[in-house]
């Protein structure tokens, strides 16, 4: 990269401009990735932290997608499910949205109802008590032993457990025995949570129980808020990646055309096309890595700052992974532009032909 390094230094202004564009694009991409992960976690963390590995829902009516909030599973189905081959444990999980009265005001929450004896129930769940998420406890200043009311029924906070939310609302675990009185108006839904071992066959299970089962991670798309957000945010990221490839490609096209005379002279002196291509790719890689690293660092810094007020995740998968992707896609754009080095004819280095 003898030439690349010197060209970078010599044409500082042009490369700085291009570098700034890459900084901004990577800033946007990493911010979006952190936000996507943060919002996703807000929608799904209660489900991904369930102790089961499979979830079963009632079959969706024709033309509709599976959904946590429209699934209804009977007690009979639970009993059948528990007897199926490969199922080591099965539990009913009720889901509803409700206002939780804390002091004199209501807080929107997702209620998860489960039999305290079942494996899905968090430790600390007893009759007459609820288990709430860290976030809810922190936001409302609640601690173990405090009282809350749901639909006029009083509960004691029995435990505060983990970062757990569903569909952007903090989760409040309620004992199953009280569920009928809390959400008996039909606005609730229910799913089966399964612990499976070897020999479990989803299709055999579905036929026997009359439900539709899937791995817990695959069930996230059945959370309405998650699938909608995730789709649009991912599309925006993909578009930004595409834009960066095009911008890099355009820059290196113009740059390569501008240095055609240099390339002709180098080729006339005996430079192989591959040597020149390698040099130019090195130049693009330096530019992408430097700009991308600065943008990613800025985004991670900003994300950490706003992490308390906005759902934002800063970890390897939201910083290094998008950076690597951006660099790879940028290199594709650069490579497409740099290809034209091979078409430069060294004869143009001679006087009369120019």
């Amino acid at each position, binding site marked *: 990269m003898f030439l690349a390094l010197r060209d970078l230094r010599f044409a500082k202004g042009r490369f700085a401009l291009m570098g700034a564009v890459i900084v901004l694009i990577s800033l946007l991409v990493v911010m979006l990735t952190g936000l996507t992960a943060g919002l996703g976690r807000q929608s799904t963390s209660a489900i991904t932290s369930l102790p089961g590995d499979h979830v079963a829902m009632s079959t969706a009516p024709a033309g509709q997608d599976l959904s946590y909030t429209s699934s209804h599973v009977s007690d009979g189905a639970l009993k059948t499910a528990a007897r199926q081959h490969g199922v080591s444990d099965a539990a009913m999980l009720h889901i509803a949205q409700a206002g939780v009265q804390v002091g004199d005001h209501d807080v929107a929450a997702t209620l998860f109802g489960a039999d305290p004896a079942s494996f899905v129930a968090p430790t600390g769940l007893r009759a007459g008590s609820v288990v709430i998420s860290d976030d809810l406890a922190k936001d409302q200043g609640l601690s173990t032993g405090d009282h809350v009311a749901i639909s006029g029924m009083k509960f004691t906070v029995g435990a505060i457990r983990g970062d757990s939310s569903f569909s952007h609302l903090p989760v409040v675990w309620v004992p199953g025995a009280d569920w009928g009185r809390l959400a008996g108006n039909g606005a609730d839904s229910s799913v089966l949570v399964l612990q499976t071992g070897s020999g479990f066959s989803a299709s055999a299970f579905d036929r026997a129980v009359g439900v539709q089962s899937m791995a817990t991670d695959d069930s996230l798309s059945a959370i309405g808020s998650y699938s909608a957000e995730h789709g649009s945010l991912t599309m925006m990221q993909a578009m930004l990646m595409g834009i960066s490839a095009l911008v890099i490609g355009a820059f290196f096209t113009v740059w390569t055309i501008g240095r055609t005379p240099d390339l002709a002279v180098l080729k006339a002196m*005996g430079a192989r096309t591959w040597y020149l291509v390698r040099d130019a790719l090195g130049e693009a890689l330096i530019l992408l890595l430097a700009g991308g690293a600065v943008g990613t660092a800025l985004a991670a810094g900003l994300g950490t700052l706003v992490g308390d007020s906005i759902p934002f995740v800063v970890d390897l998968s939201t910083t290094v992974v998008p950076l690597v992707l951006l660099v790879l896609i940028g290199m594709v754009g650069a490579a497409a532009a740099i290809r034209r080095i091979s078409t430069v004819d060294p004869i143009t280095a001679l006087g009369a032909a120019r």
Partner: protein
Amino acid sequence: MTAALELTDITVTYPDGGRRLTALDDISLQVQPGETVAVVGPSGSGKSSLLAVAGLLLTPDSGRIEIAGEDVTHVSRAAASQVRLTRLGLVFQQSNFIASLTAREQLEMVARLRGDKGGSVRRRADELLDAVGLADAAGRRPHQLSGGQRQRVGIARALMNDPTLLLVDEPTSALDHERGQDIIRLITRVTLEREIGTVVVTHDHGVLDHVKRLLTLEDGHLSPAYAGGHGG
């Protein structure tokens, strides 16, 4: 003695509208080590084609090219690059330099293309700059050099790979008479000292007192003009 360059019955034609234009019409030329041959002719006489053929940048319609006794008429593009890299020195018209490189780096670049680097490359670059009288200008970029200095850097660069054959394209076109004379003197001197065969292509008759062998190229025909002078 093996000729540095031997062209035999070279013909080059270009498409021109519906017919073909003959740039070089069955020409032959032999250049011995230590010999400077000047080829003079008006523009469009085929000078550039001659240089391009000898530099393996253009494949002739017919004829044979030998460099240092080796037939290189039909070598592949990659092999032609290799020949240029190891055996040929090209001095381009005016300032065909890379703007971002200093004079020394222009020379180092040649070695880099072969994969050579380090202190010995740097030393050789400095020696050559010294040999063309530019020891002080090693750190300057092309735009900080005068036309004459640029031409000297170009000559030093062409010598970097210790070539068998030096091909020089219009070395005086951007210079006044006196500087042009200096450059031609420098070329004939290094040609003798380093036993290189040199072909200088020019339309400038005024600077040719220093060249023993002068050929004229007109309408694709090469013919001896005069032999004499007092230089190399």
